[in-house]
Each structure stands twice: as C-alpha cells, then as structure tokens.
C-alpha cells in the first residue's frame, strides 16, 4: 500500500469519525434540551425521530406520484416539515401528558415508554408494517471525490452541515434570544420565573416541542443513512441517552464534547477491533467515567 493510500485512508477514517460525531450530536441535541432543561426522560425520543423520517417518506411519495420533476428539491422542504410536524406532536404530548409529570422524572420515563410503544404500533398499523424508503435526490447519493482515492459520503456532508446549523441555532436560541433566557430562567427557578411574569407553562410546552422538533429533524436527516420503519427509532435511543448523560445533562458544550469523544472512540475501536467489542468497550468506558464523574463531563459547579 502506498503512502498516498494510507493518507487517503486516514482522511476517510477521520471523516467517518466526524460523521458519526455529527450523527450522535444531532440525535442528542433534542434530548439534551428536553432532559437537560426540563428533566424529562423522553423514552419516545426515537419515535419522534421516526416521525421525521416518515414525513420525508411522505413527501417522497407525494413527489413521486404528483410531481416527479421535483425529486431533486423535495428533500429540503421535507426536512423543514419534519421539524414542524414532530414539534407539533411534541406540543400536544406535552399538553396531554408531560405537563402532569414534571415533579416525577422517573415516571416520565415510564409514561413516555408507553407512548413509544403506542407510537410504534401506530406506524405499523397506519403507515406500513414494513420498512419504507424515501427516494433520495441525486445530490445526496454516492460520494464526493476530492482526490481519486478519497471518497467522502455526500449524505455524511449533508448531516454534518445540518448538525452545525442546528447546533448553532440552538446555541443562539438558548444563550442569546429572549426565549432562551426564559427557558433557562424557568429551569433554574420555576416559581421565581412565573413571579416575574414568565408564562412557564408556555415555556415548557415550547421547549418540549423544540426538542421533539429537533428529533424530527434528526430523523429526517437519518433517512439518508439509515432505515425508516416502525422500530427504527428504538435503534438510537440508548446511544442518545448515553451521549446526553455523559455530557452532563444541562450543558450544550458538554453534549458536543461527549458526542465527539464517544464517536471518535467508537469509530477508532471499530476500525481496529470487531464491532461488538468496540461497542462493549465504548459503553464500558462511558460507565466507568460516569462512575468517576457522576455528573458527566461538564457541569456547572453549584453551591449546594
């Protein structure tokens, strides 16, 4: 093997790691907001991702049947729609279910698990029990070749771009906007926030909807790299939680760092070991580190 090839391999493997990082981050962002800001353990997060994926599928079907000429462009509005549909469902779920459980975080876990079962069966009964596939536009298929020996997956670049966009958006929203201030104020002191005139119910509802919307966005993006089926969402849920917990729940930078380190570890280990061992080793390392630092990588040290 020539030196050039080694270089290409390192480049491609590096991109694999980065790509996995952005995938994990996109999965985790929505949950980080919901879990980190609200303390709600949303076990149906994966199903909200599936909603996003199904929205893309729906758009793809409509395009195929009614406007085949739009195949190259339907994907972008589909992703945007995925955000709003999943967000809207999240809004309703918050209103009917989550609202009543803020004081009982472990119970949100059980209730949303029930929700996830029902949602899976909904997909199965009313959409399709089998896996479906949205027809992707050409520009998302295949690889981009910067040099003859380096192939960079286009869908990977797309997911990466989207992740950067969403992360930046979330960052600005949480830290710079009035909404972000309200959300953070509500998290830190609910009573005080409502006393100074923040409608905390509304803030909760929108925060939850935002988290779910981002999950839908992630699901939509993942139609380019993974499956769309009734149980597709459940493939992601444990990894997602680990990223959030490992990062230190209430901290966006922590989530990013955590997704990055988990992704790099897993992708490197996978390259040199078997996949099963890579998975086991990564998980174990996370657990061990969490035992040493129970509050995750990044926390705000608080006066107790």
């Amino acid at each position, binding site marked *: 093997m020539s030196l050039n090839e080694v270089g290409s391999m390192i480049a491609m493997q590096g991109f694999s790691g980065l790509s996995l990082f952005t995938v994990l981050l996109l999965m985790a962002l929505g949950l980080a907001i919901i879990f980190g800001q609200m303390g709600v353990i949303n076990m149906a997060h994966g199903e909200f991702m599936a909603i996003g994926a199904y929205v893309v599928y729906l758009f793809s079907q409509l395009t195929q049947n009614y406007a085949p000429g739009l195949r190259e462009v339907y994907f972008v509005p589909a992703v945007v729609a995925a955000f709003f549909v999943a967000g809207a469902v999240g809004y309703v779920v918050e209103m009917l279910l989550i609202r009543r459980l803020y004081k009982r975080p472990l119970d949100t876990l059980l209730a949303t698990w029930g929700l996830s079962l029902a949602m899976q069966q909904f997909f199965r009964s009313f959409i399709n029990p089998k896996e479906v596939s949205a027809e992707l536009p050409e520009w998302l298929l295949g690889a981009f070749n910067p040099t003859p020996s380096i192939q960079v997956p286009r869908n990977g670049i797309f997911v990466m771009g989207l992740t950067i966009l969403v992360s930046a958006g979330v960052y600005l929203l949480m830290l710079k906007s009035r909404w972000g201030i309200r959300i953070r104020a509500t998290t830190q002191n609910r009573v005080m926030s409502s006393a100074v005139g923040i409608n905390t119910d509304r803030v909760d509802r929108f925060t939850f909807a935002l988290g779910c919307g981002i999950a839908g966005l992630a699901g939509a993006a993942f139609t380019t790299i993974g499956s769309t089926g009734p149980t597709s969402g459940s493939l992601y849920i444990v990894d997602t939680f680990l990223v959030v917990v490992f990062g230190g729940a209430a901290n966006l930078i922590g989530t990013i760092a955590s997704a990055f380190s988990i992704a790099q570890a897993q992708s490197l280990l996978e390259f040199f070991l078997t996949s099963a061992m890579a998975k086991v080793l990564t998980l174990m390392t996370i657990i061990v580190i969490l035992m040493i630092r129970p509050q995750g990588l990044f926390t*705000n*040290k608080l*006066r*107790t």
Partner: protein
Amino acid sequence: MAEFEMLTIQGLGVSFDGFKAVDDLNFIVDRNELRVVIGPNGAGKTTLLDLICGKTKSTSGSIMFKTMDLTQMKEHDIVRAGVGRKFQTPSIYENLSVSENLEVSFPRGRSAFGALFFKRAADVIDRVHKVAEEVMLLEKLDHQAALLSHGQKQWLEIGMLLMQDPELLMLDEPVAGMTVNEREQTAELLNRISKNRSVIVIEHDMEFVRKIAHKVTVLHQGKVIAEGSMDKVTADPRVIEVYLGH
C-alpha cells in the same frame, strides 16, 4: 481528661467557581456552650454548617472536633463521632410515624445488616419516649409525621438529633415558621439541651437570639467580623454597618 475545645476551626475556606463563600475563617466553640451565628443573607452561615458536617468539602483550612479533623472524614463518620445537624427546612420522614422517625435515628443498627436485625429493645422504646417528652411530642408518637404542624416538625427533627446524643449539635434556623408560643417553648428546649453539650444555632430572629445565646458570632462575606455577647456585637459599628448599610 485532657482539656481541648469542642470545635476549633482554623483558616477555613471554600470557593465555588471562584466565589469565596467562606474565607479564612477562624472559630472556636467551647464545651457546653450555646453559640449563635448571625449575619446577613449570603454571609456563609449555612455553608459553614455544611463544611462542619461534611456536606461540602473545604478547599483549605482545618476543622478540629475535639481531636479529630472533620475535613478528612466521611459524613456518616462525622455524625458517629458526635456531630448532629438540623437542616434549614424541617427534614423529617413524612411517611413514617413520629416514633418511627425517632427510632430510625437511634444510634444502634447503623450498618446495613445491623439495621436488618435491629431489635426494638426496651432501651430503645425508653429513649424514644424520653426524647419525645423532651421535644414535647409524647402525645403525638403514633401520628404520621406529615400531619404535624410546622413547629412540631422542627422539634421532631431536633428530637431525632437528640436520639443520637451528640456532643455538638448544629441547628439551622430552628424557629423559622414558628408561632410566638412555639418560639418560647423552643428557647426553653434549647436552654435545656445545651446543659451537657455544645450547640451552634443559626438564627435571624434577634429577640430569640437574645434569649438563648451565650455568645454570638457575626459572619459577613465568609468572614467573622465580630464575636462576643449579644450586647457587645449589637453595639459593634461594623456589625451595624453590615446590617444597615446593605
């Protein structure tokens, strides 16, 4: 018996992300003394108790309880050494009855297996009754703790500490939320129990402080700014400035 102070704190400091909640603090409590710590909000009073009982780890300095350095000990070991602590909001087990609350605090069967095979012997029942009488809850022994009035909950928590017969008792705002009548009774209670142990009390109610305090320490911004009798510290211009100037 060697002569040493009950509690000697030297150069104690702790900071949270650069904010010094307690800073180079020196503090001595004698045997059988009832000391009251006062100071404006954020002066570091509660943090001081947290440091002594091990809830917060110090960044510098030492806390000697008799001959033991508490900064090196685990929370439960500190309690077993003889330091009891009442929290600011009454911290009792609302799901248990008053007698169960007291019994759970009895200093036997403290290991996990010990608790499993703990027998309610005559001495335990005896002690529960004695303490209940002390904290004026004898009538309520079989009541569920959740049903007690706020003041009674405070007493119950004090009772739970008395079950352990600590040599140093620390009470964070014991009369908060009490009626005038209950305050009277609490003052008497504190005077009774400080007969054979040292007690540290954090309190805002000056009238109450005057009733119980042997000596008063004033904290401000994590430092001791005055110490002495109630009359002496209330006359101290620095104390007046701290209280009025803010």
